[in-house]
Each structure stands twice: as structure tokens, then as C-alpha cells.
């Protein structure tokens, strides 16, 4: 959850340091289809709630997981003119690609899992209560998009993350920090953004 903590700090810092007017601007951003976001999140719960098991036994949770990424990419696409959303979208797209091409879960190598202090794992097994499936790097398609970055112990919160996760953090930081005027994606973006209503 360390990246979530980073995201939360970034958003709170933006609120504190950029001031109330900045928050008012954020509140009036013309964002669309946001009601799909909780739906996408709910679709991930079957996989994230599943205990460790061979990935082949989790067909429907993996399908729901891929559908969830499709919904997220759709929401991000329709909101692409807003600051930070292209970065966020690129991160979700890269993660979604790794998930889709590897059978519906994010691959992580047995070595990475061991480095996190989580013991020895067989391959092709869903890592319980996570989005990950344990796969050897040599068996992972587009391995460079998987959870290859590891912050091991003695870091207090050992973490594995992907290049897509890095894009996501940058995207949220840009969203929270930039004013829509400075980063609304060019002249047309500015014009369109302030024409629209806020649909949540």
C-alpha cells in the first residue's frame, strides 16, 4: 500500500499548498463517466479476494479483471484532456496490457516474491489476496511491464511495482498539482474543458 500512501500525500499536499481556490477548480473539472470507476473496482474484487490457487482455477475472476481494466481505460480516454489523466491512462494501459497478455493477472517473478520476504512460490499460481500471478520472467510475455521493480526488506513496507505504476503516480501528482489552465492539453483542451458540465 506504499504507493497508495504516496498518492494520498500528493493529493493532500496539493490541497494544503495550492490553496482553496485550487481545490475549487478541481471540484469543477468536467469529468465524465466517473460512475464506472467503482464498478471497475468491484469487478477486481473476485481476483483480489481469492486465496492462493493455481491461476487456471480462477478463470472468471481473471476475465472480470480484464473487463475492469477495459472500463478504466474507457473512463480515462473520455477524460484524457484533463491534466495528469494521460499519464494515469498510460500507466493503466501498460498494466492492463501486461495483465491481458499474461492471462488476466499481473505477473510477478518468484524471485521478486522471495525478495519481498514472502517465501518460495510455485509458478502459475495466483498470489492470494493480490492481483498477481507468480510467473518466471522467461515465461512472462512483455516481462518489462510486469511487477519487476522491488523495494525489499529492510524497507518497512516491502513493495513490488511496475513501470505502469510509476506512470500512475506521476499522473495523480500532475492531476492534483497542476491547474487545469496550465495543463488542460492545449488550446482546444482549455476551450472544451470549460464548456462542459461536471458529470460525476
Amino acid at each position, binding site marked *: 500500500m506504499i504507493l497508495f500512501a504516496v498518492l494520498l500525500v500528493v*493529493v493532500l499536499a496539493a490541497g494544503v499548498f495550492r490553496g482553496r481556490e485550487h481545490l475549487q477548480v478541481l471540484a469543477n473539472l468536467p*469529468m465524465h463517466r466517473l460512475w464506472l470507476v467503482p464498478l471497475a473496482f468491484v469487478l477486481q474484487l473476485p481476483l483480489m479476494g481469492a486465496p492462493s490457487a493455481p491461476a487456471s482455477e480462477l478463470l472468471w475472476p481473471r476475465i472480470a479483471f480484464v473487463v475492469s481494466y477495459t472500463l478504466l481505460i474507457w473512463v480515462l480516454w473520455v477524460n484524457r484532456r484533463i491534466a495528469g489523466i494521460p499519464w494515469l491512462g498510460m500507466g493503466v494501459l501498460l498494466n492492463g496490457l501486461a495483465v491481458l497478455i499474461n492471462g488476466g493477472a499481473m505477473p510477478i517473478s518468484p524471485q521478486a516474491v522471495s525478495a519481498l520476504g514472502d517465501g518460495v512460490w510455485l509458478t502459475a499460481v495466483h498470489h492470494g489476496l493480490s492481483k498477481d500471478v507468480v510467473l518466471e520472467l522467461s515465461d512472462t510475455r512483455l516481462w518489462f511491464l510486469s511487477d519487476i521493480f522491488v523495494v525489499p526488506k529492510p524497507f518497512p513496507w516491502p513493495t513490488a511495482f511496475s513501470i505502469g505504476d510509476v506512470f500512475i503516480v506521476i499522473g495523480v501528482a500532475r492531476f492534483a498539482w497542476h491547474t487545469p489552465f496550465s495543463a488542460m492539453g492545449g488550446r482546444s483542451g482549455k476551450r472544451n474543458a470549460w464548456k462542459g458540465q461536471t458529470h460525476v
Partner: protein
Amino acid sequence: MEQLRYYVSRFLSAQNVRLSLILGSVLLMALAGGAPDAGLGGG
């Protein structure tokens, strides 16, 4: 009690609700799109 009602009504203003929904949705997109590997501590 009056003061509490005042703060609650201020917090629940349309502007604040909209801000919470937008920020919450963006954070949820970030989480669903990548960040939380619950069993692995982060990611």
C-alpha cells in the same frame, strides 16, 4: 449542536461533495489501475 450542524452542512456543500467524488474517483482509478497488491504490500 448548532455549530455541529453548521460544519456538517458546510462539509456537505455541493462543491465539497463534487471535490470528494472527483478526488476519490481519481484515487480509485489509480488503485484499480495498478497500485494495491494487498498480499504483496504495495506495487
